[in-house]
């Protein structure tokens, strides 16, 4: 800015005869320093993130996969007409692919493809319930601990430490072992979510500690805004990005956790269609009929992969520092 103006001042505005080198105000034309497009909506973190994400092919690939998983979960009948559980005939036990049953049969003579399609909603439901729970608990604990600090922080953070110190799959193993008679999508999600939230709380707390020293927070304080309102209206919306960034990856982790628990036999009841259950059932036939194990594993891995990829894209898009690493 200064270069531009001085040149103008020296070169054009002041005649050679005059002695003053500071341009008189009325002689200096007001020059636009930066072109501000008033017509355009002001950019913010979320718009920037969307602009960044949509340029990346893996965003569209993982997005399409996630969409497919959601459609399969919501409308399984679009993909198969074979009932997953009620059409099992032992004559087909461990049978290979036939027409209408493209992936063959399980040991019980059930259609592998149909079981995979019908198990999708279980995985997705557990993933979604868990992240709703962990985000909710994580925001409450992380926000109050970070914003109020002091004794509140010490108390809430110690509670978080306690839950964080029990690896959440081990905790869920204990809970689900105890809840033998109450195994459902809800209880397993609760068991996972109850011990997975401290990670979210820690991320949010760290971000709030950073944001709460900003000038706009001080400005709100000076204006006499109540502290709860500052937290909800100003601090939280400006610190939520890292939480959103880890949500998709947490969803993938929750799906894996459910499958691991079901694989261990403490997950969902055998009447509920779940990839983990199918993998658990198929492991005894690894030598003779590996495809009954491979296909559900593949469905599980591809779903998790889609969410992990999406999580990467979202994290990169929301974190300018991560962009530099690409």
């Amino acid at each position: 800015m200064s270069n531009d103006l001085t040149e103008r001042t020296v070169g054009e505005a002041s005649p050679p005869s005059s002695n003053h080198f500071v341009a008189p105000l009325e002689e200096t034309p007001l020059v636009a320093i930066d072109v501000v497009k008033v017509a355009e909506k002001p950019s913010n973190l979320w718009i920037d993130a969307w602009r960044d994400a949509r340029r990346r092919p893996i965003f569209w690939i993982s997005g399409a996969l996630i969409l497919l998983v959601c459609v399969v979960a919501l409308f399984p009948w679009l993909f198969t007409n074979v009932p997953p559980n009620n059409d099992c005939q032992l004559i087909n036990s461990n049978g290979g692919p036939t027409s209408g049953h493209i992936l063959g049969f399980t040991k019980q003579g059930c259609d592998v493809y149909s079981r995979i399609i019908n198990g999708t909603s279980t995985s997705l439901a557990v993933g979604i319930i868990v992240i709703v729970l962990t985000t909710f608990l994580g925001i409450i604990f992380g926000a109050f601990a970070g914003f109020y600090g002091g004794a509140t922080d010490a108390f809430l953070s110690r509670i978080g430490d306690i839950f964080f110190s029990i690896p959440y799959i081990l905790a869920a193993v204990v809970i689900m072992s105890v809840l033998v008679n109450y195994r459902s999508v809800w209880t397993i999600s609760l068991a996972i979510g109850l011990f997975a939230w401290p990670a979210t709380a820690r991320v949010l707390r760290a971000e709030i500690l950073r944001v709460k020293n900003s000038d706009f927070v001080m400005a709100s304080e000076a204006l006499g805004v109540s502290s709860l309102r500052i937290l909800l209206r100003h601090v939280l919306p400006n610190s939520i990005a890292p939480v959103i960034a880890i949500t998709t990856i947490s969803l993938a982790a929750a799906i894996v956790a459910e499958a691991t628990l079901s694989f261990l036999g403490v997950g969902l009841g055998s009447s509920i269609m779940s990839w983990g259950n199918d993998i658990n059932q198929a492991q005894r036939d690894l030598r003779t009929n590996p495809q009954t194990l491979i296909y559900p594993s593949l469905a599980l891995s591809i779903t998790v992969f889609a969410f992990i990829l999406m999580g990467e894209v979202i994290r990169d898009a929301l974190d300018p520092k991560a962009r530099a690493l690409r």
Partner: protein
Amino acid sequence: MAGYILRRLLQAIPVFFGTTFLIYFMVFAMPGDPILALFGDKTPSPALVAQLRAQYHLDQPFIVQYFIYIGGIFQGNFGMSYSGQPVSEILLRTFPVTLRLAVLALFFETVFGILVGLISGLRKGKLFDGSSLVVSLILISLPIFVIAFVAQYVFGVQLGWARTTVGPGAPIQDLILPALVLASISFAQIVRLTRSSVIETSSLDFVRTAYGKGLSRNRIVPVHILRNSLIPVVTYLATDFGVLLVGATVTEGIFNVPGVGNTLYQAIIRSEGPTVVSFVTVMVLLYLVVNLIVDLLYGLLDPRIRYVK
């Protein structure tokens, strides 16, 4: 330093009581009578029920029961397994095997992870970097039991390079495949962490100074870049210990490694509740101790940590 150690130890106390209380609470506040459950469909005589209740202190208030249990832990009494063996005895037998497996896995994941991460970081955006990113994302997406089964099927059943199950005494050569499987979970994370850390360190002023002084790349990369990039990796390894414990449970179960994880795995699939709880408690305590030790070491290695409140 003394202040830091004291503060860290004081912080560990509520966490120790909190975690054990939480596990104890989860088990004993749940619906159902544990004594009646022992008998299944049969109805025991009231005298026997009363005797068992007294034996397991179930006639005491909940909080008293908890402190009796904690007192037992301090005396090395982690309870009895389903088959009537003391848990501490089983631990003594199985722990060396798990330790061997864990050390082997840690060796694989750190050596390969740091190496691949370093090369990726130094050649950011090149072919090697791109492929290592894809491979690590795929590895992150594969649940441990899927990796274990694929490895068992391909290397054990199809190729016959390794035994599908570990033989008695768990010799090292049998443990290589399970250790590689166990290492694969954290390998990808270590690669990514090392990579970003190397990229960050490479752009710092002291590295530029080192190049400016005319030091050779062979000296700058290991001494200036790598050493300063490893701090986040070391921290990660400590927090990752929990993942290693869960991973060991699944891996040891699948490969039949006679370790602590396998004992837990067997107890889970046979739904032997009390044994499961004892072993989970042991693992959680182990996790707490390891994290405490690493935190203290970390304070020793990096002076900045000590002053962070």
